């Protein structure tokens, strides 16, 4: 549990780490999507290739768009690119850095999908079984009355009757899968060599100092945006609280108290009574409260809390039994 917490904290500390984490999650989602997808080759000559290439290409495009969408850097980059210059000069290197970082991360999930489909081989078999020369293999069923093309198109479908008791289907499948895996491993090798070369050669071309600067400022932009959003949320909370308290206190009335005789015994009120009095904000009658709730719907207060520093106090007037004013705050 402690380790998990540490790992989570590490990932959350840096915005780059968060993006890396999301990127890896998307790659895992891509693998899960492939395993749960029920690949269903039509086994018809006209549609095999179309279906297979569709399944190999459309999901990577969807995953790429998803990768761009869930990445925070997309928003930061677009903001920085489209903003008016104002008081802060624009640095195109930062925008370029953010763009390349976003692109690299968004490309991971599609590549994972393509590699997994190639290494698994089902899609290749479906697409290219018609292009295999049946003469290479023995056991082609020739008693069904169908053309060769149609028979070859049925190879990807295991349950088909014409291949019962024949090892022809398995031989062709294995052959095509072999090709598919070779292509898959070559692509993987190519990508890794490209990555390694890029890592090794980049310092020769790029200025490391400038790179440090761009990386710092792109991280800064991300943090700044997050803090601005957080400050807005806190500010809205304070604003709302003051607005509501002011609204309550505006409904406070001046009070008139009557006495039978002048006060001569004083006693301080208990502390809890003072706290409760504060929380009541001067509303202590049913009619006042009903009026307040009605007014909250019919006439919301304006969005201005500058008066909170100088709120009016309710005035108390002391009168005796006959109505003569003894003392008044007014």
């Amino acid at each position, binding site marked *: *549990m402690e380790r*998990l917490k540490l790992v989570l904290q590490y990932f959350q500390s840096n915005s780059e780490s968060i993006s890396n984490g999301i990127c890896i999650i998307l790659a895992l989602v891509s693998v899960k999507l492939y395993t749960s997808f*029920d690949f*269903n*080759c*039509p*086994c018809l000559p006209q*549609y095999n290739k179309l*279906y297979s290439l569709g*399944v190999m290409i*459309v*999901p990577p*495009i*969807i995953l790429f*768009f998803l990768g*761009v*969408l869930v990445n925070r850097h*997309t928003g930061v980059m*677009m*903001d920085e690119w*489209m903003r008016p210059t104002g008081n802060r000069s624009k640095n195109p290197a930062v925008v370029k850095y953010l763009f390349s970082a976003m692109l690299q991360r968004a490309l991971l999930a599609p590549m994972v999908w393509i590699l997994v489909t190639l290494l698994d081989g089902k899609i290749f078999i479906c697409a290219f079984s018609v292009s295999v020369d049946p003469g290479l293999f023995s056991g082609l069923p020739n008693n069904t009355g*169908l053309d060769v093309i149609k028979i070859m198109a049925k190879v990807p*479908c295991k*349950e088909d*009757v014409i291949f019962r008791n024949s090892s022809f289907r398995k031989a062709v499948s294995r052959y095509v899968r072999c090709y598919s895996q070779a292509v898959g491993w070559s692509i993987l090798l190519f990508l890794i060599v490209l990555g390694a070369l890029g890592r090794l050669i980049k310092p020769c071309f790029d200025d490391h100092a400038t790179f440090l600067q761009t990386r710092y400022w792109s991280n800064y932009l991300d943090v700044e945006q997050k803090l601005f959003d957080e400050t807005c*949320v806190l500010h*809205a*909370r304070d*604003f*709302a*609280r003051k*607005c*509501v*308290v002011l609204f309550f206190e505006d409904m406070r009335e001046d009070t008139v*108290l*009557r*006495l*039978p005789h002048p*006060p001569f*015994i*004083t*006693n301080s009120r208990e502390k809890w*009574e003072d706290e*409760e*009095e504060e*929380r*009541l*904000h001067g*509303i202590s*009658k*049913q009619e006042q*409260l009903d009026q307040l709730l009605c007014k909250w*719907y019919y*006439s*919301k*207060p*304006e*969005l201005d809390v500058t008066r909170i520093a100088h709120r009016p106090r309710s005035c*108390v007037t002391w*009168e005796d039994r006959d109505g003569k004013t003894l003392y008044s705050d007014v």
Partner: protein
Amino acid sequence: MDKFRMMFQFLQSNQESFMNGICGIMALASAQMYSAFEFSCPCMPEYNYTYGIGLLIIPPIWFFLLGFVLNNNVSVLAEEWKRPTGKRRKDPTILRYMFCSITQRSLIAPAVWVSVTLMDGKSFLCAFSVNLDIDKFGNYSFVKDMSETEKIKLLARIPCKDLFEHQEIRVAASRYIKCISQACGWMFLLMMTFTAFLIRAIRPCFTQAAFLKTKYWSHYIDIERKMFDETCKEHAKSFAKVCIHQYFENISGEMHNFHRHRSSKDESDDEDEDKKKSDEEKLLGIRAQDDMNKVLWNWHTCKPALALRKDQIDGENNGRLNGEANGAANGFVKGHTHNVEKKEWAVYYSKV
């Protein structure tokens, strides 16, 4: 447990995160419901299409409406839309923003249902099996001898494994239709993702400043409503506390304030006496069985008025006398006049 509490707190702290959480849960519920649902095609020409397409369209509509029901912001939006203008102007962009964000979140569960249904292919198979051209799948002579209606009836039975005898045609046809269904599913997903991409990634190009403004104020409206509810709750609590305290004081008929004042002048430091004093205070002057019975009886038969006394100056029981001063309809004064009078007499006698 700690982990769950932290996650729960994080989700609740930010309203948007909470709504995202609900949105995710509904999407999972949608997928789970599809897998738990037992699809059973009627296999009759008149009903196949209705059943197949109905299952593709009606549950998404249901999920969409459920998304609206579960979203708290819907009532905030409705309130903001219908309120009289009063002192605060109404901003239509805020209403539009709130509506768009609610709609976007409600669309996720229906989209999940539609894509899962299309990827699975059963509903398309049920709906479109009658439109198949059976010659595509092979040379089947027995079909040519049939009349039109019989052919259609035969095609309608394709989705049902146990009703259709010729397994090869059934397997080939279902594979073909499933293929088309999956292609439609992927196209649907591509379209949704591309639309979402356009909305979120390209929008900053156009209206960023106005967007920040609407985002702040729509969040503010939500928070203000919560603050108002919280303040009302606190107020009601304090109101109730003071009201009940004053009720007990009135019914008890003792000058416990007077006694308290007398004893507080001694300023004793003894702790035990302090504890005894606070226990005494908690009794609120009710020390006899009859008094307590009276309190409980009156609480039901004659509740006090919703108007608090203002005991602002001294410890005398002039709070009761303030009942006259408040002026509001005060059942308290009317119901207990004889009690009040008695207490006044008591006051006079002891003061004299």
